[in-house]
């Protein structure tokens, strides 16, 4: 193997080791908050992000995302596919809470299609969030859940 190829292989192996070693903690996304907050707790897969998230400059928005429920741990949700509003989705959940949001948080850093999240949910959205709402699914009737706590479920 030539020198550059050896270096590339080393970086690849190093990243693989790091990825595996860092994937051990909290794999199921369980913590005290997600198991106790809100009226429902689900593990669900993020099916799509319908467009770009709005910037967090003058306003704070909630952005509605579509999930497929994989497991209901607590409470009740209606349907296999649910619509969940996340507060300021450009920010990591650990630092998203502010004076307007009420209690929101979690360990999720970034929303990515296909990822699985464990979430503590509350409803209805209209009574929980008074600010701007991006809801690209506006033509679909039904409940919008408010995500209080969102943890990444590691694959």
């Amino acid at each position, binding site marked *: 193997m030539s020198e550059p190829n050896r270096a590339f292989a080393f970086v690849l192996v190093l990243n693989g080791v790091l990825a595996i070693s860092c994937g051990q903690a909290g794999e199921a996304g369980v913590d005290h908050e997600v198991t106790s907050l809100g009226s429902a707790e689900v593990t669900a897969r993020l099916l799509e992000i319908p467009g770009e998230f709005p910037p967090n400059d003058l306003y704070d928005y909630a952005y509605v995302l579509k999930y497929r429920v994989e497991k209901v741990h607590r409470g009740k949700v209606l349907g296999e596919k649910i619509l969940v509003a996340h507060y300021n989705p450009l920010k990591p959940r650990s630092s998203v809470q502010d004076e307007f949001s009420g209690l929101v948080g979690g360990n999720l850093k970034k929303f990515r299609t296909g990822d699985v999240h464990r979430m503590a949910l509350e409803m209805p959205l209209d009574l929980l969030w008074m600010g701007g*709402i*991006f809801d690209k699914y506006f033509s679909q009737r039904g409940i919008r859940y408010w995500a209080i706590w969102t943890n990444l479920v590691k694959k």
Partner: protein
Amino acid sequence: MPRVYQIVFTGCFLTLIFAVPLTQVGIEIYEGQRPQVSELFLHLPTEANLRGFESEVEDSSWFAQFLRLWMQYLRFELLWDLGEKVLLGRDGWLFYRPDVQYLVEPYRLSETHHAAGDDPFSAITTFRDQLSRRGIRLMIVPIPGKASIYPDKLTRRAAAPDRSISSHTLELISRLKKAGVEVIDLFEPFRRLREKQPMPSGQAYYLRQDTHWSGMTVSIAAGVVAQRIHNLGWVDRGSTQYDLKLVSVRRRSDIIRMVTVPGIERHFPAEEVRCYQVVHRASGKLYKDDPRSPVLVLGDSFLRIYQTDEPGSAGFIAHLARMLKHPLASIVNDGGASTLVRQELSRKVDVLRGKKLVIWEFVERDIRFGVQGWKYVPVFAD
């Protein structure tokens, strides 16, 4: 060159190249995360994935975040620069840059928006027609931006009182009126008030450090709208009696909230705002919406301020309800009056049952910069 120099230079060069990414990886591992760089090897190297990776690296970089913060701090301390979205006016007044851009930049409503199918005129007239088919009337209320009413607080050169600087909005108002749309022009009454009835010292019709109007101005605007509704005879006057209760709140500037300079609040403390809460006379309780009202109000944060924000029940909606003598229904979507609020209405279309009048408020900069533009929204399913 001596070998020791070569080693030192090589070492410095390698440090420059690798110090940042290796430190970033170290921080990420310490925080229990998978290193961002591993994403490079976990996805196919397509153009979209590589651009996404680049963007994520920029967003998550500890160095970028740390340095950006302190660069902004230095720029503020040395140059009084508050960032790309904020303009520092005269006498401590702050302006939101898109408000000013909307006023001063050349911009043609008919060309820019129409070509993109993103036209406020079409969106409004279409919405008017949608409602009209169900016997509901529409009233449009464009709110003047702060810079339209207080251009002299932005720059001394814009202080000529006879010069109209909100020509884009006035042009849209004129076109809408010609098309038979009922539009409330608040520009003229607000300017007249400024000239004829200056507020007491230290107060103004708009907040000095915020994008919104003052607690007193919401009541004035509600008065103009209520008077027009009465003149048109569109809605019967109700019988609910409301009283006013003077309160003061301290409002933290929405413009300053955007600025990430450390310690910025020391330079721009919260503003004290006087406003009137609307109180139901019979029960003594604060004003509350009624979804069964014949009047629905749609709009943005100009409706939310003082209404669901502190102190509550002191915003435009409560004051209009007091003047019409019956509670109103409302849907408010911050920054989303151009399209998002109609999408929300479409989701809750049952709220239109029994309505006689829809009042649609939006701040004038949304004519150009409205979030999501001015999309066609099929409010009714059929």
